[in-house]
Every structure is written in C-alpha cells, then in structure tokens.
C-alpha cells in the first residue's frame, strides 16, 4: 500500500515560493472500475479534482454516483484503478495526514461512555497514542469535554450511547471525528438521518467548528441547502459512472445564518444545483 515513490513528486513548496501552494488533495484522472472484462462496472470515470487546504467542499449528486467513492479514495480506504490521488503533495497513503471521518451511522461503541468513545482516535493516532495512558485522565479528558461543550453535549460525557438520542449521537460522532485535530475531515451524509431542526442546528455547529479550526472538509450530502449553507465550493456529480459536471463557488459571507438560506441568491443557487442533478439523473448532461 505504501508503494509511492517519494522521489517522483516534489514535496510541498516552501511558503516563500511565488506560486500558489499545491492543493492539499488532488485527484488526477482517478477512476474506479469494479470487476473485469465484460463484467466490468465503472463506478467513477477518471476524475480531476483539486481541493485547497482549508477548503470546505460539498459533493452532491444522484445516489450511487460515486460521491462516497471519492471520499474513500482520499481516505485511502480503496485504491484507484486508474489515475492518481495525491494527499499532502504525495501519493495517498505515503504522507500521514490526520483524517477524521463521520458517517450517517454514528457507530458509537456501546460498551464505552461517550467521552471514551470520543477519545478512541487518540488511542490510535500518533502522537496521542504514545501519551494516551499518561494523559487520558487529564489533558485528553479535558480536550474531549471541551469539544462536547462546543457541540452542546456538556455533561453527557459519562452517559452511554444508548442513553442519547440520534441527534446527540451525531454530535458525539462529530466530536470523535475532530478530537485529534485532523487536517482533513471527511463527512459522508452525516446529518442524513436527522430531523430538519436538529440538522440545521448541527449545520451551525459544524460551520463554527470549521471556522475555528479550519480543517479541509469534504462533505457528501443529498441536501442542497446543506451543501450551499456549509460549503465554500459545491461539486455536482453525474449519475453512475460518476464524474464532476459542475463546480460552483459559494460566495456568501460567513458566518452564514439560517435566514440567509431563504434569501433569493441562496435559493437561486440551490435551484441551479437542483436543476443540474435532475439533468444528471435523467442523463442529459
């Protein structure tokens, strides 16, 4: 898996370099084909996509179009059958980039308290891993508590997952994805199973977390309002085999408010995205 040749690629340019810094993530003709020969199914047509450090990119598109596939490529959970995926300037997997991931299913471990669930990444990722025993009752614990407070779960650290509602579990899930201060946050429809009000509340929290910590975020979602509210860039994908058919910057000022989502420019943007996806579904693009 670690077969990338370090000498093939120039490491990230020094800050003084005149050119714009390399993007943190770069897909160069990355494509995925499952199966072989006549049975081959193309899941993702060779795709180019650059994502700058600190960007917040939303991937939208019809279901099964390969949005999650892109996420998994970037997380090095699957390998591209064609093309290249670069993270941090080197082939994916070669550079240890801190990654936090969250799915629609919160997957909290039922035998651990919420606090310990959230601290799970610290048990695994260096440099926290080697200090875990020493600091789990002090510094790391405080870190978890602070994060819980930000997402509105202050005082719930001692509870077990089954004592929390779906919305609360999803808040905890966000905490788990962020506890190790990842440079890259990958979210796969994290709010898909929540009711509208909880979802909107979590949008505000996620926006705040992003503004405070500036991780690079890739958000896969079906909700166009969510995409336009949260993201700085929205990429629309076509139906399977997926490819990116539109790449829109979202110009609205931060922090965005829910009221803004009902203003004409915002509505116009979501309408446009909707139109693109409808076309993508019917195969017109």
């Amino acid at each position, binding site marked *: 898996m670690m077969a990338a040749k370090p000498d093939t690629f120039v490491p990230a340019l020094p800050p003084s370099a005149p050119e714009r810094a390399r993007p943190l993530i770069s897909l160069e003709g990355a494509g995925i084909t499952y199966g072989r020969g006549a049975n081959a199914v193309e899941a993702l047509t060779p795709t180019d996509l650059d994502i700058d450090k600190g960007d917040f990119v939303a991937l939208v598109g019809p279901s099964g179009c390969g949005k999650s596939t892109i996420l998994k490529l970037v997380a090095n*959970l699957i390998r591209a059958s064609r093309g290249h995926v670069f993270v941090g300037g080197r082939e994916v997997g070669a550079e240890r980039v801190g*990654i936090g991931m969250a799915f629609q299913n919160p997957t909290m471990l039922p*035998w651990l308290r919420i606090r310990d669930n959230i601290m799970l990444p610290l048990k*695994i990722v260096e440099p926290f891993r080697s200090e875990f025993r020493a600091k789990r009752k002090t510094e790391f614990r405080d870190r978890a508590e602070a994060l819980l407070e930000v997402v509105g779960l202050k005082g719930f650290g001692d509870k077990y997952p089954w004592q929390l509602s779906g919305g609360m579990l999803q808040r905890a899930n966000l905490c788990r*994805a962020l506890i190790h201060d990842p440079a890259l946050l990958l979210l796969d429809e994290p709010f898909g199973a929540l009711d509208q009000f909880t979802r909107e509340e979590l949008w505000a929290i996620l926006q705040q977390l992003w503004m405070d910590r500036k991780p690079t975020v890739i958000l896969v979602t079906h909700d166009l309002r969510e995409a336009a509210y949260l993201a700085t860039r929205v990429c629309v994908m076509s139906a399977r085999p997926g490819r990116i058919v539109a790449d829109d910057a979202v110009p609205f000022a931060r922090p965005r408010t829910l009221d803004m989502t009902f203003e004409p420019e915002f509505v116009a943007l979501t309408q446009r995205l909707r139109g693109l996806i409808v076309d993508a579904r019917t195969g017109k693009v």
Partner: protein
Amino acid sequence: MEFLSERARQKLKSALLILSFFVLWEVACLVFKVSEIVLPRPTVILGALWQFFPGIRPHLIQTLYTTLVGFALGVGIGVVIGAVIGVSRVAYDTAYPLLVGFSSIPKVAVVPIFVLWFGAGTTPAILTSMVICIFPIVVNVATGLATTEPELEDVLKALGAKKLDILWNVSLPRAMPYFFASLKVAITLAFVGTVLSETVASNRGIGNLMMIASSNFNVPLVFAGLFLLAGLGVALYVIFSLIERRVAGWAMRKQDFAMG
C-alpha cells in the same frame, strides 16, 4: 425503590414456581403410588444424597475437576480457532466444514477411540468434555468478531489503525456477549461430555457412580447423581452469568445495567 420490590417479587414468584414443580412431583408419586424403582420422590432422592454423601464426594470432585479441565481446554482452543476463523476468510472456508462435520459425530462414538488411545479413566473424560465444548465457542467467537460495523472500520482505518488496533479496541469487546453466551452453552455441554465418558469407561466420577447404582437398583442414588449434576451445571452457569454481567453487561437489558 418501587422498581426493586417489583423485581424482588418477580424473583420470588419464579422461585415458588420452581419449588412447586418438585412439590407436584412429590405429590404425584404419592398419589399414584409410583414405585421407588421407577421414579423416586424428591425427598427420597435428597435422603439418599444425604445418606451417601461421604461416598459420593470423591466422585463429585472427580467429575467437577474433569469437567473444568476439559472446559478450560475447550474454551482455549475454541477461542483461538474462532478468532482465526473470524478474522481470515481462508480459515473460515477451510475450518468450518471440518468443524461442522466433526461436531455432527455423536460424542458417544468418539469415547471408545479416546479410550483406545489413552486408556480408561480421567483422560478420555477430559477430552470428551473438551471436544463437546469447542464447537459452540468457535461459532460464537467467529460470529462476534465478524460483526464489526463497516463504517466504524472505515473510520478507524482512515485514522491509520492497524488490524490489531481494530481487533483489540472494537472486535474483541464486541465479541464478548457472543463469547459468554457460548460459555454458558459450553459449560452445560462439558458435563454431558464428562459423564458420558465416565459412564462408558471410568471407575470414578458421577457417571460411573450412577452406572453402579443403577446396576444395584439403587434408583434414589441414581437420581441423587442426576440432581448433583444439575446442581453443578446451574452453579457454574450462574458463575458465568455473573462474570458476564461485569464484562459484557452493556449488551444486556439496559435498565439493569444502568442500575448496576
């Protein structure tokens, strides 16, 4: 504390029901004048147990010892095989058919082979109780390990977790409830294995005692042996249930767990 009294009342109710089963047995034997050779009354059985206890004790210790050793070996081997099968696809495909085939063989048929290899006595009894426990443990451990949510695995792999990290932090704890469920099945089976082997080829142990008692038509003593076996089985089952509560309580009824 209304909850506790409700719980206590339930326990009392079931205890009374269990007791009434024996009372019914006693009364039925008296009313229908059932001969002691056919079915002794519970009081007669307890009397026999009391009367012969000094003679029974070494047999009891022998059976308990044999069973526990066989059980411990079975658990050890079962966990290892189960873990390998649960983690590796190849091992699953290879070992599963073999295991299913092996566990379908009636264990009575295996005892003579063990006797042939190791002679009559303790060793075949230990081995019989061992082989009888392996299968449920293997199946449960393998299932438990294989049920990790794929999303969680992705989250951990994205963090750079090694296979061992995932096994240790997620898969093993998740397999615990399955493991304990299988322990409770296995401990009762282990007694079956021991007694089976003792009945066929041994000069000690409760199985042997019951054989001798039945050939002397001392039916109350035969039933006393049965009672002892049942008692031992229940006792060990309870012990494992208590350990389970501590180790894997999260998987049980939430209410009780919250209270504990």
